[in-house]
C-alpha cells in the first residue's frame, strides 16, 4: 500500500475515534451531578430563572435527545457556546490558541535537541561520571512538579534578581523583546520535564543499540567512535524515541494548564480548566475534541515518520 493511501486511511480512522471521544465526554459530563445552569446560579437561585435557563439550553430533555442535538451541531462544525461567557467556543479557542501553541512549540524546540544530545552523551559515557550526572539531572527534572518549578523561577528571576517580568503574555508580533522576556520562564518550566523524559529515553535506547553486535563489529573494524555513535547507533535508537516524542504531546497539553495559570498566560489550558470546574459543557466539549484531534494528528505524524527513519517498515 502506498504511503498516500495509508495516510488517507488513517485520516479516515480519525472520524470514529473522535465520535468515540465525543460520546465518552458527553456521557462523563452529564454523569457529573449538577449542570452549568445550577453552578452558574450558585446558592439560593431564583427557581423561575433556573427553570427558564434549563429549558432554554435543553437540559430538561432526555439525555439521548440532548446527545443527538449536540452531535448534529458538532457535525455542522458548530462546537457550541460557552454557557458562562455566552460566546461561541470556537471564538474563545481561536483567541487563546496562539499563546498555547507558542508555549508548546518553543518547549519542544528547546527540549528536543538538548535531550537528544544529553541522552547520546550519557549513553556514550555509560556508567561513568558524565552518565551519573545526566541521569541525576534527568531524574531531578522529571520529579520536579511544574507548578513548583514555575513558582521557584518566579521567585528567583523576578522577585530576587528582578531580571524578568513575572507574568503575562505579549504576542511576538506586537513586541518581540517583551514577548521573549515573558516566555523564558514558562518555556523553561514546560521544557524541563520534557527534556528529562526524552533524555532518559534517548539514553536507554542508545545503550541498547550500543550493546548490539554490529556496534562491536564496527568498533573492531576501528571505525571512529563518533561515527559509530551518530551514524549507526543513533539512527537505530531513534525509532522508539519517535513514538515517545509523538505521545509527549499530550503531556505538554497537561503541563500548559499549570504553566498558563502560574504565568498568567491567556491560553487554552486555562480555558479548559475553568470550563471543567464550572461544568461549561461547550468549552469542555470543544476543548476535548480539539485536543483529541491534535493528539491523533501527532500520532499519525509519528507513524509516518517511522517510514522515513526506517525503510523496513511497510504500510499495509
Amino acid at each position, binding site marked *: 500500500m502506498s504511503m498516500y493511501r495509508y495516510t488517507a486511511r488513517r485520516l479516515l480512522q480519525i472520524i470514529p475515534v473522535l465520535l468515540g471521544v465525543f460520546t465518552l465526554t458527553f456521557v462523563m459530563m452529564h454523569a457529573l451531578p449538577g449542570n452549568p445552569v445550577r*453552578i452558574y446560579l450558585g446558592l439560593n437561585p431564583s427557581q423561575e430563572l433556573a427553570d427558564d435557563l434549563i429549558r432554554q439550553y435543553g437540559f430538561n430533555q432526555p439525555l439521548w435527545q440532548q446527545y443527538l442535538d449536540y452531535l448534529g451541531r458538532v457535525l455542522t462544525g458548530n462546537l457550541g457556546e460557552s454557557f458562562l461567557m455566552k460566546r461561541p467556543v470556537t471564538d474563545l479557542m481561536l483567541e487563546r490558541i496562539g499563546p498555547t501553541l507558542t508555549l508548546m512549540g518553543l518547549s519542544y524546540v528547546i527540549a528536543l535537541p538538548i535531550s537528544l544530545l544529553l541522552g547520546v552523551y550519557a549513553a556514550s559515557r555509560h556508567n561513568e561520571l558524565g552518565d551519573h550526572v545526566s541521569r541525576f539531572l534527568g531524574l531531578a527534572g522529571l520529579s520536579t512538579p511544574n507548578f513548583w518549578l514555575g513558582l521557584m523561577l518566579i521567585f528567583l528571576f523576578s522577585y530576587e534578581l528582578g531580571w524578568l517580568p513575572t507574568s503575562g503574555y505579549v504576542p511576538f508580533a506586537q513586541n518581540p523583546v517583551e514577548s521573549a522576556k515573558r516566555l523564558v520562564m514558562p518555556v523553561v518550566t514546560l521544557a524541563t520535564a520534557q527534556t528529562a523524559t526524552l533524555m532518559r529515553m534517548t539514553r536507554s535506547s542508545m545503550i541498547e543499540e550500543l550493546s548490539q553486535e554490529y556496534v562491536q563489529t564496527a568498533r573492531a573494524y576501528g571505525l571512529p567512535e563518533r561515527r559509530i555513535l551518530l551514524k549507526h547507533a543513533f539512527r537505530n535508537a531513534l525509532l522508539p524515541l519517535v513514538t515517545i516524542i509523538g505521545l509527549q504531546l499530550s503531556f505538554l497539553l497537561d503541563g500548559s494548564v499549570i504553566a498558563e495559570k502560574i504565568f498568567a498566560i491567556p491560553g487554552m489550558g486555562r480555558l479548559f480548566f475553568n470550563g471543567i470546574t464550572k461544568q461549561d459543557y461547550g468549552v469542555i466539549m470543544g476543548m476535548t475534541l480539539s485536543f483529541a484531534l491534535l493528539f491523533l494528528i501527532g500520532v499519525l505524524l509519528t507513524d509516518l515518520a517511522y517510514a522515513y527513519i526506517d525503510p523496513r517498515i511497510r504500510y499495509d
Partner: protein
Amino acid sequence: MTDKDNLPLDRRRFLTMSALGGATMLAGCGGQTTDDGPSDGSEGGTFINTSPESATTLDPRMNELAWANSMMHYLFDTLVTIKPDGSDIVPHLAKERPKKQDETTYTVPLKQGVMFHDGSEMTAEDVAYSFNWVLDPKNKSTNRENLGFIKSVEKTGDYEVTFNLRYAYALFELELAGMNAAIVPKKVAEDKGQKKFAQKPVGSGPFKLKEWQSGSHLTLERYDDYFLEKANLKQIKYRIIPQAQTAFVDLKTGGVHQASVSETLLGEAKKVDSIQMKRISQFDYNGLVFNSKREPFDNRKVREAMQYLVDYDEMLKATKGELAKRSYGFMPKEVNEAWNFPWQEWKQKYYPSRDHEKAKQLLEEAGYGDGFDVTMSTLASGKFKKMVIKLQNEMNQVGINAEVQEVDTGRWLDQLDTGEFDVTIYGWSGGQDPDGFYYYLFRNPRNDDGGVEDNYIGNAAGGMLYEAYPDSEKLKKADEKIREARKLGTREERRKLYIELAETFQSEYPHIPVYSEQSATAWSKKVNGYDPTAFAAQPLCNKWSNVSLDN
C-alpha cells in the same frame, strides 16, 4: 480582589456588596486635590490592577459575579450612590433622592447633561429602559429577582422617572445604588443587542472601554466628558493573574499597582516597603450546616451539642488565620455593629466555649450517648476542608464516627437542594443589610409566590428547619417576620424584628456560624490618594478622591 476559589461565594447578593459595598464610590470623580499635590500636576498614567479571573460579561444587566461589578462600576453609573463610610445615600445620576409619592410610588428627577460614552445624552427614557429591560422575563436577566420589588419604571418627563413598586420595600434606595440598577443607553443597547453590548458596553461612567481580552486583560480609558470632574488616571487596566503568588511578585516588582494578598503571603507582604496593605471586610458568613431533617440532627439537642464540641475560635484560626472574624447571629460582625444588634449577648447565650462533658451530656439526653455515624461533605477547597476536618477530630473524641467526603461544586449544590447530606459547609454573602442574610437563608421558600418544587429543600439551613418541623408555630411566625422586615419603613422597627429572628433561629442551632471573611488588598505606594474600603467599588475615582500616580 476577593477570594474567588469558591464558586458559591462568587454569586453574591448584589444588594449590598454592590449597592452598599459596591456603588459607594460611584459618585464620580469629584476632583478633590489630594494632599500630594494638585491633580493637574500628575495627570495620566495607567493604574494596573489584578484579578484572578476574567469577568464573563461587561453588561451589568446580565452579570452574576459581584466582584466583576467592581470593574463595571467604572463604566456605568447609577441613580444614587452611597457615601464611602456607608452612612448615607446621595444622588448621583439623579438630581435628588427619590421622592415618595405614596408607599409604593417614587419619582426621581434626573440630572441634565449627563453624556454616555457614545456622545448621546442620558434621558428618562434610558433610565426607564434600563430597569424595564431587566424586569422583562423574556430577557432572562439574572438580576431580575434582585429588582423584583419593582413593578415598572415610567418616564414621566424628559428628566424624570417614576418607580411603581410591588410593595413598600425597605431597601429600595440601596438597590438603586447597585450595579443591578446601572443605567445603559437605550439606543446603543437596542442597536447592538445584548450579546454585542456585553462585549462592547457603553455607559456614562468615568472610564470607557478600550480593550477587553477575556482571560488576559481589560483596559479602560478615561472618559473626558464625564458629568463630574474627570479622572486623573489616563487608564485603568485589570490584568488577569490566576495565581496569588504570581500577582504578589508582580506587585512587589512594580509590574502591577494592586493585588490581593492571600493568607499565606501576609507575613511576606508586611515586610515589603514599597506597598501598603488594608483589610477589607467581605460581608459574608461561613459556617457548618447540620441537616435537621435527618437523624440524629433532627434532634435539637444534638445540634446544640455540636456547639460545645469545638473551639470555634480555633477553627477560624486554622481555617482563615488573620483574614477572618467570628460571626454571630448568622451575620458578619460589621452588620451586627452597624445595626447595634446585641451580638455580645448572643455570644454568651448561644456560643459557649468548648466543653466535651456538656456535649456528651446533651447527646446522652438526646438518646445518642453511644455516638453515631455521620458523613460530612465539603468542597475540596482548602478553607472549607479544614473546618470539616477539625469538626471530625472533635466528633471522634466523643464517640461520633464521622467520615469526610469531598465533593465538587455541582454535587455540593445538589446536596443542598435536596437535603442529601448529614453535615456540610455553607458560605453566603449577604451584604450590609440583615435582609441579605435572613431573607435568603431563613425564609420558607415554599411560601414564595409560585413556591418551589416538592423535592427542593434549598435555603440550606432555614429551609431544612421548615421541612423538619412543618407544624412549628414559632417558625411560621419567623417566616412572616422575615417577609415583613423587608417591607417595613423604619430602621428601628426592622431592627426589632431582626433581633427576634436572630433569637429564634439561634436557639434552633440549624447551623454554626463560624467566620466572616476579610480580604487583604495591597497597593503600591506610588499611588496617591487611594483608599479602598469595603464600600468602595470605584475607589480610584469618585466624589471624595481622585487617584494619581507617581512617575
